[in-house]
């Protein structure tokens, strides 16, 4: 700790940080633009000028940039000093020379860092009355709008997009007064994290195009803290609602999970919530006709189901509460996971590994701190994108090391990057085709699932001191490199997952991690495919297999089936599902959207979307997190558990029951805040204190102001009245602090910049207790199933298209491709298939051929999306050209680095 003096007051600060960061941590107001809490300082904007004094006798002082000056012991500075204040005011005046006066029509208005800083710096009259520089705006794809005239050249966009997220298609162009930030030509921003530009840009250059379609000012949005259901990372988000429809999703800070950034699937994949395809009301299907059900009929149905023997199928995208309520209704023996059998086996293995003393499942923040990473088979950019962004930061730890050796503070971002050049911490990627992290990888290994697992087992063997046999010379070289990097690392990290349903890959990952573990457990991050896969797997045993459930139905052994938020046609072979559904007398399906399974149901019930319910989810590291209800559903939807408990339970009781009774969920109840925690027992308002138009919102239909909806269950209210979470951040939806209307107000709610939220909740780890001591798995040498006319199959995932619900959002659909089959040029030539051809897989399902350089011969990688049921494809497929065509836009917009369309 160091002592500094700011305007005569003494403070204790961290000398490893700069003055700006420490001033903000202390809660002082100091304007800034180019600095960002997790991108460090470059001193570009000159906005955080302060006066620094040599000692207490120095009355003159010198002006320094707070972001470029260390908070060293004894530093004496003044923020209030007149010269410093004047400098900040003049700097912002010049930055804004060409800034348009368009705040009333600008979407950033009301949550604009530039507006806030302008007021804070005291620049409230614009003297410049000459012609302003104007720019041409670019089309940047379906997510982001571009309005370059508003730019104040802080360079934050390229520092995030290029330096932080690894994007290659946004750059700073030209110079001085006509500096331009854009692509080299119009086109979709290709990086998976482009949406963060909306929040990173301090003004309105990059705005959310989906939000624009039904724009609402920040203060008019009803918000609540929520969890993204796009993947198993469990990013914290703040959805915003107005007039009964969801309007946007923005990042919500969680120091352990997503920090300041989310991926584009999470930010733009919510439109299905407002969609026409939502199940509207409970209905019974009789002879093909759908008939709405009365309350009595519903009661009667569920009573009958509760009494008889029925099968319940839980869902990896349902909340813990709904899955638990279903298990209670049907009994543990009849409760099955809506997860494919091979994936279920891998998931159960992952659960077991979580309890093993040799391993620790790292948080996103811990992943960023790894100094050597080894990825086996999991395409994290597409299955858990936020994790890929964290891995991209981990390779920069080498730069931090070099900076330390050279006495350069790590927050000196430009200096550290200049110093490190191409030096990176080691990253090894085993994958079935080129991945989007290859550009920062030290080495990559392309092969089928079996080949990857075999190689990973060999690495584990070598780490244990063995000499693995059967490797090619090239593999041997790669193995030595990986072994050296992993053994020399202080914080090595192994990543794998269950997306490909390969148990060998996860076993091999565990063996490597076990070989690296010593007194401390080693870091092993195992990704799961969906938002609550972990939560569902905790509720079922390994022997409860979906295939068995379908068989029991098909045999007529059980007459009924309750399917919770599962499209069975994505989880099991089509024929098996058909047989089961045809035989079952009663098929009750509870889901958000109509799909192939609801089409075959005898009874369909609408359930609430993530933003319409209070619920808990468990992420890949077993972190359970509470997601609040943001708004009421426009349909008759209720949470799944509400239907299943026949309205008897409320959210607090169902969480309590699950916590008390379900094994592994003991700490779940601790997530739920109680009203007694808050001042005078007042609820937390979901609406801001500036929420406008409440009396007039429905005046076009009825001039009488209705009573605000009452929330009897939650500690949050559908109202602007109550006790807003100002300093107490335990429930923090949208951040706001006096003078800080933008998302930068977050520093007012953190213990310190980049620290935990004050009284904040980062969630609770359900599997924190380690009970087992395992042993290494026997390396099972996998064999490929390819023959001369069949290619070994593995699955490809796409950030836009592989997740079931987000794939039904129009903005995401604009970025989706058709189902495709990627194969090596040699195989394509042999099979006489050209890039873009329609190809039948095993003579059935159709996919577009995609010829890629980095794919091993004899194997193919299939992206199914919603067009192909992957469980209909065996371990090897034959490809034949077909004249059938697919409904979508083919491969256009596919973003991979190794396409070889030119020569085809």
């Amino acid at each position: 700790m160091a002592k500094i003096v700011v305007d005569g007051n003494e403070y204790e600060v961290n000398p490893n940080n700069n003055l700006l960061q420490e001033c903000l941590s202390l809660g002082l107001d100091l304007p800034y633009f180019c600095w960002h809490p997790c991108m460090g300082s470059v001193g570009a904007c000159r906005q955080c000028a302060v006066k620094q004094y040599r000692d207490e006798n120095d009355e003159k002082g010198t002006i320094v940039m707070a972001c470029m000056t260390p908070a060293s012991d004894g530093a004496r500075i003044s923020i209030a000093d007149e010269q410093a204040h004047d400098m900040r005011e003049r700097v912002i005046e010049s930055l804004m020379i060409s800034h348009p006066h368009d705040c009333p029509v600008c979407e950033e208005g009301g949550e604009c860092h530039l507006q806030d800083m302008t007021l804070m710096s005291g620049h409230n009259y614009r003297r410049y009355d000459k012609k302003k520089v104007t720019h041409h705006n670019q089309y940047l794809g379906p997510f982001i709008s571009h309005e370059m005239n508003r730019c104040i050249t802080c360079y934050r966009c390229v520092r995030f997009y290029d330096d932080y997220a690894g994007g290659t298609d946004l750059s700073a162009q030209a110079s001085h007064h006509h500096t331009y930030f854009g692509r080299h030509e119009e086109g979709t921003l290709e990086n998976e994290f482009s949406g963060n530009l909306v929040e990173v840009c301090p003004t309105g250059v990059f705005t959310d195009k989906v939000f624009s379609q039904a724009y609402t000012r920040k203060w008019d949005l009803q918000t609540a803290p929520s969890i993204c259901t796009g993947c198993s990372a469990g990013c914290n988000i703040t959805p915003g609602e107005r007039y009964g429809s969801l309007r946007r999703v923005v990042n919500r800070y969680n120091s352990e999970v997503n920090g300041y950034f989310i991926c584009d699937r999470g930010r733009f994949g919510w439109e299905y919530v407002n969609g026409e395809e939502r199940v509207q009301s409970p209905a019974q299907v009789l002879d093909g006709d759908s008939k709405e059900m009365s309350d009595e009929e519903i009661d009667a149905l569920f009573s009958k189901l509760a009494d008889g023997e029925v099968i319940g199928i839980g869902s990896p995208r349902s909340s813990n509460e709904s899955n638990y309520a279903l298990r209670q209704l049907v009994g543990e023996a009849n409760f099955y996971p809506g997860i494919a059998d091979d994936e279920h086996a891998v998931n159960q293995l992952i659960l077991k590994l979580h309890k093993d003393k040799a391993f620790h499942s790292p948080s996103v923040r811990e992943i960023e701190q790894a100094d050597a990473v080894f990825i086996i088979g999991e395409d994290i950019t597409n299955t858990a994108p936020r994790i890929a962004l964290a891995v991209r930061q981990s390779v920069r730890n080498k730069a931090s090391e070099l900076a330390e050796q050279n006495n350069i503070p790590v927050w000196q971002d430009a200096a550290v990057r200049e110093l490190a050049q191409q030096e990176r911490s080691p990253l090894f990627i085993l994958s079935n085709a080129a991945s989007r992290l290859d550009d920062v990888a030290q080495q990559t290994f392309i092969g089928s699932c079996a080949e990857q697992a075999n190689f990973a087992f060999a690495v584990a063997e070598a780490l244990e001191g063995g000499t693995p046999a059967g490797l090619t010379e090239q593999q041997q070289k790669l193995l030595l490199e990986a072994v050296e990097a992993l053994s020399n690392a202080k914080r090595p990290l192994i990543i794998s997952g269950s997306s490909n349903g390969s148990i060998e890959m996860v076993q091999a990952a565990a063996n490597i991690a076990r070989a690296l573990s010593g007194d401390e457990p080693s870091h092993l991050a195992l990704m799961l495919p969906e938002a609550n896969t972990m939560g569902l797997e905790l509720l079922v045993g390994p022997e409860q297999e979906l295939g068995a459930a379908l068989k029991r139905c098909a045999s007529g052994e059980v007459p009924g089936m309750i399917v919770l938020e599962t499209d069975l046609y994505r989880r099991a072979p089509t024929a098996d599902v058909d047989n089961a559904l045809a035989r079952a007398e009663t098929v009750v399906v509870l889901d958000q959207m109509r799909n192939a399974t609801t089409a075959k149901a005898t009874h369909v019930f609408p359930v609430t979307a993530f933003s319409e319910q209070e619920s808990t989810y468990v992420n890949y590291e077993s972190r359970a997190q509470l997601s609040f209800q943001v708004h009421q559903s426009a349909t008759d939807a209720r949470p799944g558990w509400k239907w299943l408990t026949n309205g008897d339970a409320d959210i607090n009781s169902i969480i309590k029951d699950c916590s008390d009774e379900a094994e592994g969920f003991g700490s779940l109840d601790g997530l739920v805040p109680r009203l007694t925690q808050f001042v005078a027992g007042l609820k937390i308002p979901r609406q801001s204190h500036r929420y406008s138009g409440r009396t007039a919102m429905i005046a076009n239909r009825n001039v009488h102001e209705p009573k605000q909806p009452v929330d009897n269950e939650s500690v949050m209210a559908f109202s602007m009245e109550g006790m807003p979470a100002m300093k107490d951040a335990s429930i923090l939806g949208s951040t706001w602090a006096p003078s800080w209307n933008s998302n930068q107000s977050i520093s007012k709610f953190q213990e310190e910049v980049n620290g935990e939220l004050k009284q904040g909740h980062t969630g609770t780890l359900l599997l924190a207790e380690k009970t087992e001591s395992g042993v290494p798995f026997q390396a099972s040498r996998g064999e490929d199933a390819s023959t001369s006319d069949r290619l070994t199959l593995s699955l490809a995932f796409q950030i836009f298209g592989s997740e079931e619900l987000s794939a039904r959002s129009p903005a995401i659909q604009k970025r989706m491709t058709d189902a495709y089959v990627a194969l090596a040029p040699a195989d394509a030539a042999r099979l006489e298939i050209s890039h873009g051809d329609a190809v039948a897989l095993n003579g059935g399902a159709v996919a577009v051929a995609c010829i890629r350089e980095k794919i091993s011969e004899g194997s193919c990688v299939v992206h199914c999306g919603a067009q192909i049921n992957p469980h209909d494809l065996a371990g090897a497929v034959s490809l034949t050209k077909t004249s059938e065509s697919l409904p979508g836009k083919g491969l256009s917009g596919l973003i991979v680095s190794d396409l070889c369309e030119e020569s085809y």
Partner: protein
Amino acid sequence: MSSQVIASTKSRARVLTEAEISEIEHEKTLYPDNQAVGLEALKIVQNHQGWVSDESLLAIAEYLDLSVADLEGVATFFNLIYRQPVGKNVILYCDSVSCWICRGDDIKDYLSEKLDIDYGQTTADNEFTLIPVPCLGDCNNAPVMMVGQDLHRNLTKDGIDEIIDQYRNKSA
């Protein structure tokens, strides 16, 4: 290493000539990584082609495995990398202070009127492009301008006529 060239634009690159490639290859031996070669490659291509077209930009990016956007950032940062076609002779006219004191403005007006172009424009016959330059480092001989690789000092209106004719005759 994966290719940095984004798929969407890869196919529109032009083919670099052998001469261009051999000069770029030479530059590659002088720098630690390709990123540093980018500017040199732009200069080489401009030497051969007169300017840097979108197709050339893509070709260089692909050849050196650089991001097109980053290379465009370099190309547009430097005023003397031409991203639009220029005439056969590029006139760099000094608009800095010494030349201005020596009535450089009047002579520039005369030149503009004579060629019927202003800064940033090219004559209809594609012979001359006029571009301002902030100092050519020859203030004691102000006003000055460059035409192609030649520096012309102590400019006068009569002198301008002569210089322009000289270049017209050369190409005629």
